């Protein structure tokens, strides 16, 4: 081989090497916010909302902000919820979190521990922000790190036809009525009375289908920010759920059922009642247009007369502590929480505004949304898992122990004590 050919080979190998290195470097580097020469600022907003809203709607909302703030450009980074959680966790550690971050309340505690989120209480103070308009805030040690933007509540869904076949005229309002109705549906129809998804892949059944009974009766599983699972309210609620299971009015396969299974079985008329997100109304209508169903507040303990807590999930928002443009990011958060914008995004998402002065536009919407809004306003949003450390793991611990109890291994009291012990380690 000639020297020329050999040198050409070396250069070729060098080019391949350099290209590989460049590709690897570019693959490993994350995107970031920037300031252009003309002083224009670009901030990033990572969220899953865009994938759940109609195409282009989130961009329109962002366009409104950009029109008000011509020097700020917001770049949307949209990913499905499932992949965003893992990515947000790792980005929090590596300091590459987007300037504005879409947050689930369950992620907040961990991100705060990492020092990844900006203390929004400080931003509120420095800009004299009126926090009284916020229906709730996710706080750790008294400081706000995330703000719910849209709340998705979990009322009781009842199948009108199945209830009628069972001789029930109105949805149950108390626990006794619910048990009686569930038994009637199970006995007089081919369906089961209720569905309790306790699958551990996503253990949110603990929050939505077990603890909802506690919160609806004004109870709490926390005391001074610490686990308090052994109080009478929790024991009463968990005992009640177990009584439903023991009465065999619950759909089969409880231990591996997930939320989508719950919606499917209700939609197909396999169960008469479920506690579920209002966000699924459209899904149910599309899948079974003939299904007649109603919504009502989750039944409370028979003697309870106070306001009912209604479980909710939310689209939360926060600001990265590493952001170079915190002022612009906070301005964007304020924009999202402003009365009109908040009402607009809530209407688009079929949720309820977390700005307490905003009212969603129900024009053209399913009448059940307006009905649900009345339930929402009559009660209060309740989800004590929001902001807790490793809340998914807490739910999973509860779930596994509760499954053992339902399977006949130990009493509810013992189960709550042992779960409390494991929860305390996480706190």
């Amino acid at each position: 081989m000639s020297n020329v050919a050999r040198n050409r080979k070396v250069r070729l190998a060098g080019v391949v090497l350099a290209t590989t290195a460049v590709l690897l470097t570019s693959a490993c580097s994350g995107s970031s916010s920037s300031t252009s020469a003309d002083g224009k600022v670009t901030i990033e907003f990572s969220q899953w909302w865009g994938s759940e809203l109609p195409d282009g709607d989130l961009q329109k909302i962002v366009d409104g902000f950009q029109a008000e703030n011509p020097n700020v450009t917001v770049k949307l980074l949209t990913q499905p919820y499932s992949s965003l959680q893992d990515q947000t966790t790792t980005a929090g550690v590596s300091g590459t979190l987007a300037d504005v971050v879409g947050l689930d309340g369950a992620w907040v505690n961990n991100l705060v521990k990492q020092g990844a989120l900006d203390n929004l209480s400080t931003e509120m103070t420095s800009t004299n922000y009126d926090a009284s308009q916020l229906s709730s805030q996710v706080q750790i040690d008294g400081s706000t790190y995330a703000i719910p933007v849209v709340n998705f509540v979990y009322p009781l869904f009842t199948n009108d036809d199945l209830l009628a076949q069972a001789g029930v005229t109105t949805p149950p309002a108390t626990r006794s009525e619910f048990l009686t109705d569930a038994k009637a549906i199970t006995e007089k129809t081919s369906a089961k009375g209720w569905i309790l998804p306790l699958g551990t892949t996503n253990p949110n059944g603990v929050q939505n289908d077990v603890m909802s009974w506690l919160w609806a009766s004004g109870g709490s599983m926390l005391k001074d920010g610490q686990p308090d699972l052994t109080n009478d309210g929790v024991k009463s609620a968990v005992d009640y759920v177990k009584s439903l299971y023991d009465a065999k009015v619950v759909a089969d396969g409880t231990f591996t059922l997930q939320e989508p299974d719950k919606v499917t079985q209700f939609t197909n008329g396999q169960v008469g009642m479920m506690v579920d997100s209002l966000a699924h109304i459209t899904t149910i209508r599309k899948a079974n247009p003939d299904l007649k169903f109603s919504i009502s507040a989750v039944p409370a303990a028979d003697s309870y007369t106070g306001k009912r807590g209604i479980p909710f999930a939310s689209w939360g928002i926060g600001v990265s502590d590493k952001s170079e443009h915190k002022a612009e990011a906070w301005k964007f958060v304020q924009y999202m929480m402003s009365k009109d914008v908040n009402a607009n995004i809530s209407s688009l998402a079929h949720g309820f505004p977390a700005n307490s002065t905003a009212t969603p536009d129900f024009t053209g919407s399913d009448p059940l949304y307006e009905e649900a809004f009345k339930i929402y306003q009559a009660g209060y949003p309740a989800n004590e898992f929001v902001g807790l450390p490793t809340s998914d793991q807490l739910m999973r611990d509860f779930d596994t122990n509760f499954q053992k109890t339902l399977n006949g291994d130990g009493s509810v009291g013992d189960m709550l004590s042992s779960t409390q012990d494991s929860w305390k380690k996480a706190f």
Partner: protein
Amino acid sequence: MTALRAGRPLSRFGSTRLARKGTPYGFVAPTAILLIALMVVPIILVIGYSVSDGAITTKNASFAGLTNYVTLLTDPEFWNAALNTLIFTVSSVVAHLLIGLGFSMMLNSKLIGSVPRAFFRVIYILPWLFTAAIIAVLWRLLLDPQGVINYLLQSVHLTDSPVAWFGDPGTALLAVTVMNIWAGYPFFMISLLAGLQGVPADLYEAARVDGASPWQQFLNVTLPQLRPIIISMAMLDVLWTTQQFALIWLTTGGGPISVTEMLSTFTYKLAFTGFDFSMASASAVIVLVFSLIVAIFYVRSQRSES
């Protein structure tokens, strides 16, 4: 000028030697860089995390020595996951081998015509064409309390009431194992079929001349000829089945009551629901060590074959 004249040939000579020595490295470099970036660095990082406290979740993770390993190896949940993984893996690999061998022999048999053979070949290989998500959905529908299997069992009065196969602690491990067996046997079948087609016909002729029965032919001709393939496939299958995650996660999530908890799901939960990346890394390193041992045996068997 003199120095320049004297230096030129030397420089050319030096660059020629450099080119000769450097060329192979240049060609190997892209692969080497990729291997280092995608294999070596992550493994070193994970080993590093496993001996630290609060890896990833805290800014200043401290050195923890072997504490995480001690905690893990004294955790009954880890051993429960290890035992489940062992039962799941051994059952799956044995069943994969037996079913794969049976079907491959059937497809290789001269007793079956070419059309039915082609038909069965397509049918038998179908499970391998589906992704894990599809397989999980399919089996969830099949084994649902209102599903086909329960309907059939009740129709022939084998069960009185519907069984929640994935949801019942008494049947869940069996259900995920059966699903995994269904999903994985075609790989054995195809490989063994290729092996069977390579067995010289004169070996069978010689066995028949010696008066060997079909069973004796199978024991003394077929099995010895397939032995290298069987050993290789079994070891690969042990590695793959030990690391099975998707099918378990999408059907039972490790439940009910941890009866289908595998080392893969246990490790995932430590990392992504408990955010305990240090413990998760320790668990992953233990699985890695086990996999390495199997891999060493695999490489040795490959060497002895060659």
